[in-house]
Structures are given as structure tokens and as C-alpha cells.
């Protein structure tokens, strides 16, 4: 049952991603931009923004499952929060990589200490620290408790970080961020939504796989322990 769900998910994902590629690179009309480089670079938007959305979704899941863990002490929730934190860090990394790739041809610089960029980086750092913490702690209920606490504090901190940097930014003249194209044209909106849905599906698939793997790891560890006792 589980494997049929996974298999069909994978097939749907493959088709959806091929569809995404077609829509993004061939179907959707290019934006009105002064040069070709900018027109090409703009297409990264369809990967960049869904990745960011996925990162936030993943961290929200970390928060919820951390709360669930602390109230139920069910190992299942611990594993879900780890899996989700890993995927979240992966996708925020993608955001931090695709962002500069777009920024270089359009803004002329790879990086600027703008609100969004800085808060994404801080967000990434928070969850990298979360994963490092888990790595440094021995497996057990202590680790589960401590990481759940950090998972909760971390997520509550995210809006505060964003807020603080935005306040700080207004002290300075508005920089390069203003070059956004305002509202999306209809075909662009469609492609964006399609990409968003595909990425969300990818999250579901990755979560399922990572969770299954963690359960298997648990099982292997348990059997190793039993062997040691013998």
C-alpha cells in the first residue's frame, strides 16, 4: 500500500516536473525587460519562490510536530520534525543559491544586505543550528526534548527576525529591491501556481521518503542493540 502511494506520487511528480520545465522554459512569454539576460534570469523566479514557500512550510511543520512531540512524547513526531527540518534547510539553501544567480545579471551584484536576503540567511542559520544540535547530541529522549524546544523557539523567532531587519532597512535609502514587476500577468501566474503545486508535491514525497528512512534507521539501531545484548 505504502509503496504504491510512493510509486504513483513519483510518477505524478515526474510528469509534473516535465510539465513545469515546458511551461517555464518554452510556454510562458518572457517578461518585458531591457536585455535578454534579464529575461532569461527572470525564469528562475518559478523555482526560487516555490523553494522559499516550501522552506517556510517545512519549518512550520517542524514547529507543529515539535509541539506535538512535547505534548504526546510520540517518537513519530520527533522523526517528522527532523525530516522536515532537513528538507527545509535544503530548500532554503536553494533559495539562497538561486537568488544570487538571478541578482547578478539583474542587480549587478550577487548579494546585498536587504531585508529578504538577510532574513532568509538568518532563517537558514537557525535551522542549520537545529540540525547541528541534533548531530551533537546522543540519540534519546533528551535529544528529542532539546531539539523540540529549539524547533519551537526557532519558528517563533522567524517573524521577529524579519520584522527587525525590515525596521532597520527603512533607516537606509531603498536599495535594489524596488525593481519587482508588480503584479503577475495571467500566464505567469498560472505557471507560478503550477510550479508551486509541483514543489509542494515534491515536499510531500520527500517527507514520506525521509520519514520511512528514519523509521528504518530506528529499526536497524534497535536490532543492533539487541545483537549487542546477545
Amino acid at each position, binding site marked *: 500500500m505504502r509503496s504504491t502511494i510512493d510509486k504513483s506520487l513519483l510518477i505524478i511528480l515526474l510528469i509534473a516536473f516535465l510539465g513545469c520545465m515546458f511551461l517555464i522554459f518554452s510556454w510562458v512569454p518572457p517578461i518585458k525587460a531591457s536585455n535578454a539576460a534579464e529575461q532569461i534570469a527572470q525564469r528562475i523566479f518559478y523555482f526560487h519562490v516555490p523553494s522559499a514557500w516550501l522552506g517556510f512550510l517545512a519549518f512550520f511543520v517542524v514547529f507543529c510536530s515539535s509541539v506535538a512531540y512535547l505534548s504526546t512524547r510520540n517518537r513519530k513526531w520527533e522523526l517528522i520534525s527532523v525530516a522536515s527540518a532537513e528538507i527545509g534547510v535544503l530548500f532554503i539553501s536553494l533559495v539562497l543559491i538561486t537568488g544570487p544567480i538571478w541578482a547578478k545579471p539583474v542587480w549587478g551584484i550577487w548579494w546585498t544586505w536587504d531585508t529578504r536576503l538577510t532574513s532568509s540567511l538568518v532563517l537558514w542559520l537557525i535551522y542549520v543550528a537545529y540540525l547541528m*544540535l541534533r548531530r551533537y547530541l546522543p540519540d534519546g529522549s533528551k535529544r528529542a526534548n532539546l531539539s523540540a524546544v529549539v524547533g519551537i*523557539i526557532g519558528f517563533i*523567532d522567524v517573524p521577529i527576525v524579519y520584522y527587525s531587519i525590515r525596521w532597520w532597512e527603512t533607516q537606509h535609502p531603498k536599495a535594489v529591491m524596488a525593481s519587482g514587476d508588480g503584479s503577475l500577468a495571467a500566464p505567469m501566474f498560472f505557471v507560478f501556481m503550477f510550479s508551486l503545486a509541483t514543489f509542494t508535491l515534491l515536499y510531500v514525497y520527500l517527507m514520506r521518503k525521509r520519514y520511512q528512512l528514519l523509521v528504518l534507521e530506528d529499526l536497524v539501531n534497535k536490532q543492533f542493540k539487541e545483537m549487542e545484548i546477545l
Partner: protein
Amino acid sequence: MMRAALAILKKDLRMEFRSKESILAMWIFSLLIFVIFNFTFEVSRLVMLEIAPGLLWVAFVFSGMFGLNQSFALEKENGNLRAMALMPVDGGQIYVGKFLSVTLIMLMFEALIFPIFIIFYDLQLSLEMLKLIPVILAGTIGFTSLGTILSAVAVHTRNQQILLSMLLWPLVSPIIIWSVTLTGMVVSGEVTPAFYPLLLRVGAFDVIFFTLSYMLFDFILED
């Protein structure tokens, strides 16, 4: 009601006053930060004045890490952490005790380093400077309220010190950003109407961080 918290506070302060370990180390370390900054950024006096507020907070925060690390490392060394967990009181009380001792020690260190800061950066002493007291108080409380709980988390790991920095700095960055802005306003003598709302905001987030940590501390002590 808060008897356990006060007992922990008293114990920590007594230990600190006998050894003067944390305050002295933090003070010397801050001095080093000032000196190293002077070497690495050879800038004019005017520029120095502009970066001075940031530098002050760098000194506070870097040295504060030492106090935070120390606070729980000492408990762990002597197996006291377990004893605390076994105490028949609410975990929140232990948090409050530890938070108070760390905060007081850090405030004392800040009071001792501030005159040096004024001398090094040739700041004008005036009544306006008194506005720094609530700023430093609010910033420090924000830093230590999160720092205390994260120090209790990090103490269970092998790489306690580096992990505490990794956990704390991103999380506490809003407080630091605001504190630097506020300090800058006072030091440059340009206290705008935005000063008090911002100060209030730091205070509000202090309360949020403190309450959150207070509520969650029980889970950290559990085995």
C-alpha cells in the same frame, strides 16, 4: 514562591564574587575586542564614532557568551544539573534563578567596561547618556533570556561553546539590531521620536522571549 530561584541566584552570585571568574574574563575579553578592532579597522575618529555603538554590542555579546557558557558548564561539571532537575520545584524557577544570575553578572560587567568604552572612543558625557541605561538593560535582558535556555540546551553537547553561539546569535539578532540602533541614537545625540517606541518594542520582545523560555524550561531538565 520563588524561593528556589532566589537560592540559585544567591549561590551563583556568591560563587562569582568569590572567584570573580566570569566578570574578570568578560572584562578583559572586551578590552581585547576594542584593541583588535582598533588594529583591524584603522579608521578616522569620525567613522569610529559611527561604528562605536556596534562595537559596544559586539563586546557585550561576545563576552556575554562566556558568562552564558560558564553558567551551565559549572553546574554540569559537578553533577549539579541533575540535582537541579531532581529538585521538587517547577523547572521555571530554575530558569528564573539562572536567568537572574547571568543577567546580573552581565550587567555588572557592562557597568565596568562602559567607562573604558567612553575613554577609548572619547564620547561626550552628558545627561543624555542616562538614556543608555534602559537600552542596555533591555538589550541585555533579551540576550540573556534566550541565552539562558539555549545555554541549558547546549550544555548537553560536546561542542558546547560553538553550538551555543550557533543557536543563540541568529535567534537573538533582532534584539541586537535594535539595541545597536538605540545606542547609536543616544551616542550620536540624535534621539528621535522613534526612540521610545523602539525601546518599548525591545522590552516587549524581552517579555516574549522570557515567557517562552520560562514555559519551555521544564522540558530541558527532563531526562
